[in-house]
């Protein structure tokens, strides 16, 4: 399947009609549409999606209604009575037929506001034979959607309409949900599922159930057995419904368990960091106390001695004056005249000599008395001198001591500040409030929940089996009581045939699914290695078809959940290429006898490489023309050189937008 052309009329950024014809040449199956950022490349990519499915790809947080499809320039020129059409026509061809799909909306303007209102919608499809000159056949309107979905399955649209800028965003949830379905459709497994559903899996509406009801019996006992059998059937269905519910709950719990385990795993280092953080906190506190202690020492010394040191020049000046006044010192320190009077009154000197008027000792004491206060200030002067000397002695080493203390303080403060900085930085790295205990409790709760649900599921399965056995027993009994007529015999044969068919389909489905999964998984790994030259990482499909990426470690591969944008795109590309290759291979197998060309979906890529490195762009680009019959790429001019796709290009276009105009135009590149 290839796209032949697309025509846009008044679609979003494109005013009037713009047309692109795509290269369908073998060997030159690439069409490139180049343009700068924001000129309207994505709009053309959106036009594909809108034409096929009536919806554009929305950005996160936006709804379909938020996108105005009618070109704003056209809307501005409308009045209250005028109408304007928006349409996109897509022409696709396969080996035999040409399909022209056209989606159209007629708008009115909610004048005077600049709002477009839908007036009429239309979707048409014309089919014609490529080889014959037969006229076009119009497909019935109600069947157009169905046919489009057959030709371009919507749930595969994420793969063949690939939006590099947005796909990685929606890849996890958007793609995970339908990967399995997509694979089943592509591989034909969905047909098995549909057949199995029709035969048995849709309960009382299924073929087998209907056939059973056709078989009749006679007598009250038969009727009673039939009624019992129906009850059993209802009980079995109820049990199966319950089992499905339990399975959903178990799956949810497992998912939550996995999330918590991943969280704990990711934060395993955090616990070590928290210990480091606590230790650093203790060290910080100790250093803070040491700083305070050093400060205290300096404050004490400063309080005790600074004033004495500051008073130095005062003391010196006062001393000079005092010395000038007092002359030679003759006093006895701390002695006053009253002291001499006391000694003389006692009649005996301190040295033991007897004191009496007229003796030498008596005269000496009288003389000394003259130099003592209060009659003389000489003694006070002496005290002043001694205090001055004491002060001097006390502060003699003070400058050195103070310097030493200042150095100590500096050392402490620096260490403390370094620790503080480290502490803050570590604090930022850590969410100090992470409560691992709470997470572990949650994990335990989920694990207990899984156990309980597992046991419930077991009970329920036992119950279902018991009903099943009961039902089989009843059916045996009923068989014995069936009316022995031709009608019943025929229904019985049909029933047995349907059951045998169901059994065979079921076996084949299981086998085929395993085979498909194995093949896809092998292929996706090969493609990832080939396209990304990946040696240190690999991707794998899980049983649920999640695409998981693994990093090589010393102890084998470890799953990595936090992928970069580039890695997500790389992963998804590997998947797309794998799917496309697989689909091609399957069709080749089918058509092996008929020697027909294989039909695959074209790939339309919007800015696929914007988040990839040059080397990866080259590797991916090289793989694309090989896996698809047709490749249509919208990309930045500047990235084109890295693709190395020039030799495959059949047609090239430029999207341009003049600065003064609000709409874009498409121009075919010369020489292509």
């Amino acid at each position, binding site marked *: 399947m290839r796209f032949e052309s697309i025509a846009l009329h008044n679609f979003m950024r494109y005013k009037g009609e713009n047309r692109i014809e795509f290269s369908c040449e073998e060997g030159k199956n690439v069409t490139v549409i180049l343009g700068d950022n924001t000129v309207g490349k994505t709009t053309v990519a959106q036009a594909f999606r809108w034409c096929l499915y009536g919806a554009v790809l929305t950005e996160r947080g936006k709804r379909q209604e938020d996108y105005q499809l009618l070109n704003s320039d056209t809307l501005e020129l409308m009045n209250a009575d005028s109408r304007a059409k928006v349409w996109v026509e897509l022409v696709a061809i396969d080996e035999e037929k040409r399909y022209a799909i056209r989606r159209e909306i007629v708008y009115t303007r909610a004048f005077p506001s600049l709002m477009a209102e839908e007036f009429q919608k239309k979707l048409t499809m014309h089919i014609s034979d490529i080889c014959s000159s037969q006229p076009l056949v119009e497909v019935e309107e109600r069947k157009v959607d169905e046919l489009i979905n057959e030709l371009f399955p919507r749930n595969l649209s994420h793969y063949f309409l690939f939006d590099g800028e947005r796909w990685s965003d929606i890849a996890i949830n958007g793609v995970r949900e339908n990967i399995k379905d997509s694979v089943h459709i592509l591989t034909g497994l969905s047909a098995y599922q549909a057949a199995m559903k029709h035969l048995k899996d849709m309960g009382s509406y299924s073929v087998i159930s209907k056939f059973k009801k056709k078989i009749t019996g006679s007598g009250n006992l038969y009727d009673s057995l039939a009624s019992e059998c129906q009850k059993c059937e209802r009980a079995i269905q109820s049990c199966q419904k319950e089992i499905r519910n339990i399975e959903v709950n178990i799956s949810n719990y497992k998912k939550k368990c996995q999330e918590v385990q991943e969280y704990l795993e990711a934060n395993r280092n955090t616990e070590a960091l928290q210990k480091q953080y606590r230790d650093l906190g203790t060290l910080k506190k100790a250093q803070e106390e040491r700083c305070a202690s050093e*400060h205290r020492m300096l404050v004490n010394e400063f309080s005790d001695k*600074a004033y004495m*040191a500051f008073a130095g020049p*005062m003391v010196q000046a006062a001393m000079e*004056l005092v010395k000038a006044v007092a002359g030679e010192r003759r006093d006895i320190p701390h002695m006053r005249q009253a002291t001499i009077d006391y000694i003389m009154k006692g009649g005996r000197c301190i040295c033991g000599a007897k004191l009496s008027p007229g003796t030498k000792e008596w005269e000496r004491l009288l003389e000394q008395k003259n130099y003592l206060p209060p009659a003389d*200030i000489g003694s006070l*002067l002496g005290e002043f001198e001694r*205090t001055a000397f004491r002060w*001097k002695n006390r502060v003699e080493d003070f400058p050195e001591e103070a310097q030493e203390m200042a150095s100590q*303080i500096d050392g402490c403060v620096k260490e403390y500040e370094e620790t503080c900085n480290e502490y803050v930085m570590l604090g930022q790295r850590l969410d100090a409030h992470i409560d691992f205990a709470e997470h572990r409790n949650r994990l335990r709760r989920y694990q207990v929940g899984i156990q309980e649900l597992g046991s419930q599921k077991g009970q329920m399965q036992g119950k279902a089996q018991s009903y099943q056995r009961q039902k089989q027993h009843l059916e045996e009994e009923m068989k014995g009581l069936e009316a022995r007529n031709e009608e019943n015999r025929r229904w019985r044969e049909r029933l047995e045939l349907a059951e045998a068919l169901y059994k065979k389909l079921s076996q084949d489905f299981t086998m085929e699914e395993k085979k498909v999964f194995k093949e896809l998984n092998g292929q996706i790994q090969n493609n990832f290695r080939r396209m990304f030259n990946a040696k240190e990482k690999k991707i794998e499909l899980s049983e649920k078809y999640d695409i998981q990426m693994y990093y090589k470690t010393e102890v084998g591969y470890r799953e990595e959940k936090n992928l970069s944008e580039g890695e997500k795109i790389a992963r998804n590309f590997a998947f797309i290429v794998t799917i496309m290759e697989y689909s091609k291979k399957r069709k080749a197998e089918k058509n092996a006898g008929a020697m027909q060309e294989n039909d695959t979906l074209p790939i339309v890529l919007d800015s696929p490489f914007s988040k990839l490195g040059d080397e990866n762009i080259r590797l991916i680009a090289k793989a694309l023309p090989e896996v698809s019959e047709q490749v249509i790429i919208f990309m930045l001019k500047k990235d084109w050189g890295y693709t190395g796709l020039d030799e495959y290009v059949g047609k090239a276009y430029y999207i341009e937008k003049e600065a003064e105009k609000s709409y874009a135009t498409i121009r075919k590149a010369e020489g292509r």
Partner: protein
Amino acid sequence: MASFEFFKKEFEFRGKHARMAGELWIQNDYGRTYFRRLIDLYITAAVIGFRVDRKAKADYAPNESKSIFPEQMIGAKEDLDFIMQMIMILENSGKMAPEESVKKAFRGVETQEEFEYYRDLFHSYVRGGVEELYERLILRSPELDEGVYDGKTANVMALLERFGDFSGVSPASC
């Protein structure tokens, strides 16, 4: 000085001087305070005020006052008397004969009027000293090349560098 003794009563920092004293002395916060006790600030401020000849009148801005209780005063009386004696000697040396100024300093004041005069003189130096210390310890931002990393310590060291000087006083001179 028998009948009129200084430094036996409470002293109160008031107004802006109380605010400044509150920043220079923060009780039990050795990381921020410069003085262990308020009396230490009082003594140091008296010396600094006299050294830079900075007197300041009492201020009555509505700040909570800060008091030094009599027992603390009496505990430091010996050093305070010594400073007062020096102030009296040096303050009067230009106004009267050196012998007179020294005798005045050692015999002490003899009238209420004299007592109040010298007490107020001392306190005006204390307030002036508080202002000077506030500027040099609180308002000053140390330069990077002072060789001391911690800002508070750098200011202390700069103050010691500026005013700490006992080189002229030698045992021989005492």
